[in-house]
């Protein structure tokens, strides 16, 4: 808990730390907190207490190992968000992955070993390809340094930049996940212990977005522009695909997993539109999505625990006996599909605005329309799920009802408060992200190219 306090404290001001690490190859231990890092560290710092509070009563075998690994993962995540040195970034990237592997394999569901292994192989493949890309870019930097400022100046020619771009993109796309690299995701979210799933979907998936914003867009800006349409098409295909599957799902966990995939796809597509409002929208939405999805997981976890099932078809009428839970859940779910007044609306509005205003693609209207369809689909499956699970007649399973425990109430209440605070007063976050997104867009050269 003291670590959590410390991480909260860290967000107070811009911090920098720089120390020599492997001097012979010009790699240094260099971390800096910019707007992007700030928002994601805030997310991590909020997410961890939420996760621990909401699963306060859960008993784990060998709980000391569990919490040690969770905190180790947190260290990795924080490192990824802060690292300003490519090699350090890679180190933390893996440091976040290894504890996740052990957590899921040790405390997960029935098919955990195979599923987690698939997850691990997927992400490890991605990350090691990213390593090749990092090394290649490093060799093309004028000063032979892993520092991010050196990476901005790397002199890659067009063809090599293209494949370096794809090597890196694959790593980030696997984390998001972007279709068609998503097949690990529903299984892993389903089989992992819920506390870990919360972190995986709420925080870890953001590593991919961060990677794209910080390491892809400004460094390989030409390829980023060149392949933007291809990637956006992939992302939007994935959104529609995931939404359609989510409609068919009977399993609550898988439903949320696919909806998460759809939301992350929107972020990816928006990034490749390269606009100021879109970029800020993505940053804010990362935070929103993080806390919203944790809220959803909390409720699903307790439904599963109390009623012994995650099947939508077996649940019905929960709202009658546990109105508090129903109310909080509905708020979070509506925030997740972006209803006005909630935080999701702010993020999604900015993102759609960003895609529509995009100057780098000819197909912005198509993209906006298709992405808009997925919002409708999201409303379909979310409302459908709420209707089936919470309303209607109570059945034999749900007659007992379930009053929320204090810790669960607390966690959900915090989330709901955050939902409304950001939904009504997004200025704090807008200010926080403005400078960084301007800086990155400038590096990406959009302004210069199109005279904005």
């Amino acid at each position, binding site marked *: 808990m003291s670590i959590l306090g410390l991480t909260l404290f860290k967000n107070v001001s811009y911090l920098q730390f720089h120390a020599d690490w492997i001097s012979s190859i010009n790699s240094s231990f260099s971390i800096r907190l910019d707007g992007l890092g700030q928002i994601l560290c805030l997310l991590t710092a909020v997410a961890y207490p939420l996760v621990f509070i909401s699963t306060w009563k859960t008993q784990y075998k060998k709980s000391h190992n569990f919490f040690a690994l969770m905190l180790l993962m947190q260290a990795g995540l924080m490192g990824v968000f802060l690292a300003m040195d490519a090699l350090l970034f890679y180190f933390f990237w893996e440091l976040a992955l290894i504890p996740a592997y052990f957590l899921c394999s040790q405390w997960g569901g029935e098919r955990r070993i195979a599923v987690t292994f698939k997850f691990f192989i997927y992400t*490890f493949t991605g990350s090691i*390809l990213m390593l*090749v890309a990092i090394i*290649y870019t490093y060799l093309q930097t004028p000063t032979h340094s892993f520092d991010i400022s050196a990476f901005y100046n790397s002199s890659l020619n067009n063809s090599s930049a293209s494949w370096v771009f794809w090597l890196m993109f694959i790593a980030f796309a696997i984390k998001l996940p972007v279709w068609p690299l998503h097949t690990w995701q529903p299984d892993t979210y389903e089989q992992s212990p819920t506390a870990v799933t919360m972190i995986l979907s709420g925080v870890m998936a953001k590593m991919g977005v961060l990677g794209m914003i910080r390491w892809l867009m400004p460094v390989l800006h030409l390829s980023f522009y060149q392949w933007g349409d291809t990637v956006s098409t992939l992302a939007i295909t994935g959104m529609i695909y995931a939404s359609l599957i989510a409609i068919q799902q009977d399993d609550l966990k898988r439903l949320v997993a696919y909806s998460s995939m759809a939301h992350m796809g929107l972020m990816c597509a928006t990034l490749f539109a390269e606009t100021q409002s879109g970029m800020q929208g993505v940053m804010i939405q990362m935070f929103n999505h993080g806390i919203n999805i944790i809220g959803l997981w909390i409720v699903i976890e307790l439904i599963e625990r109390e009623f012994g099932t995650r099947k939508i078809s077996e649940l019905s009428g929960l709202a009658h006996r546990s109105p508090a839970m129903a109310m909080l859940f509905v708020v979070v779910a509506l925030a997740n599909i972006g209803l006005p007044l909630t935080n999701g609306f702010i993020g999604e509005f900015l993102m759609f605005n960003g895609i529509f205003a995009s100057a780098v693609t000819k197909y912005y209207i198509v993209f906006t329309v298709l992405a808009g369809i997925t919002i409708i689909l999201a409303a379909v499956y979310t409302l459908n799920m709420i209707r089936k699970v919470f309303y209607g007649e109570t059945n034999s399973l749900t007659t007992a009802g379930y009053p929320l425990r204090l810790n669960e109430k607390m966690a959900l209440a915090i989330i709901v408060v955050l939902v409304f605070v950001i939904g009504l007063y997004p200025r704090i976050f807008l200010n926080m992200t403005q400078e960084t997104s301007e800086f990155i867009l400038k590096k990406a050269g959009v302004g210069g190219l199109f005279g904005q």
Partner: protein
Amino acid sequence: MNALLLTAVFGVIMMLSSFLLTSKTAIRGLAVSGMVIVLAANVLEMMGIVFFKIDTKDMIAFDRFSLLFNSIVFISTLVYFLLSARDMEKVGINYGEYFALIFFVLCGVTLSSSFHSLLILFLGIEIISIPLYILTGSDKRNLKSNEASLKYFLLGAFSTGLMLMGIALIYGATGTFSTNGITTSPTSALVIAGMLLLMFSMAFKVSAAPFHFWTPDVYDGAPTVFTSFMATIVKVAAFIAFMRLFNDEFGSLQSRWQLLIALITAITLFIGNITAVFQQSVKRMLAYSSISQAGFMMMAIFAMNADAREGLLLYSAAYCLATIGIFAVLMKLKDYSFDGFNAFAKQQPLLAATTTIFLLSLAGIPLTAGFLSKFWMIKAVAGTGKYLWLVIFAVLMAVVSVYYYFRVIQAMYFKEGDGQTIEASLPFKWTLVLLAGIIVLLGVFPNWIIYWLYF
């Protein structure tokens, strides 16, 4: 020079000790202290203090690279003695002789890491090989051990023949044994033929495909305690010799051999990793894993630049220490199959944790020495700017390797089972923990090794 003479002297001392000393503990103590002395003498030489000044007529050159490598090898051997010397008792009655042979091998290692003449290379490789044939067959009542020894001897003798032929051709073309580099131009047919023959025989010694067929059988058949030694220290020594040879003598012909080495590297990575996936015995899996790791080390030979030299040293340290550790744990088990590791973490949490670190290091996960050594290799090859497909192929193969290394971790932590009861003494455990600590520290501060190369 210190180490060269002292290893030979200790070889003789250990040989005599086998009939002068009756207690096995005394023999073991003597061997360990001998190793410490050799290591200390070598470190002193790195600092410029040489005990014996011998005019070698420019046939042996102890430079920083070779001295540093020797230190790595001696540290690894010391660790190996501390962890596994007790297990040698089970092999046979010639306890002292086994140590004597190992010291002789180390003498060969010093030679092959610092030769400056093809003659010394040949002697070094032979001094390494002949004791190994014996050690492989030292479990005399075991038919598999006998078979392995004979196989190793016949194939090894054949590759030595190739090497001699190569040396003779090179001598015929240049008129000298010393490895100052081929300068004659245009390159004569004799040089090319000799170079190829040397390349093939060295590829055999490092068990690079397609010259690897002996490796699984020999490593599997040999007593495990000696497999551990062969698969680590001897293998990296052969790599250093390979590197020196192709750097000093054939460096100017790099464009001629680079494609061939790249192909050998790719085939080695492919065969080693893919075959390892299908193994049921951990010992045999480690044999194939040693082939796949050899594939990674071949990348240093391919690149042959400053990064490659640094990388090969790091790789030697990382690979030797991790593999010695795994073998030390493996030797304590009765069942060598993957299932033998089931629920090992419940039985021996400390040993399981250290084994996990060793396996993570072999798989090349960050924060371990194994990652940085693979990193250096990739950097070296990427730095040549050619054959980038090799890098991509290598990292994909590294992903494959994760599969079989993690199978052991899965068995240890996540599978149910009775778990084998093994006895592990407290010093044994602490040595393993120390070893794991070194691997992690090297994974964070590789400068500790690389620093020594330049200052």
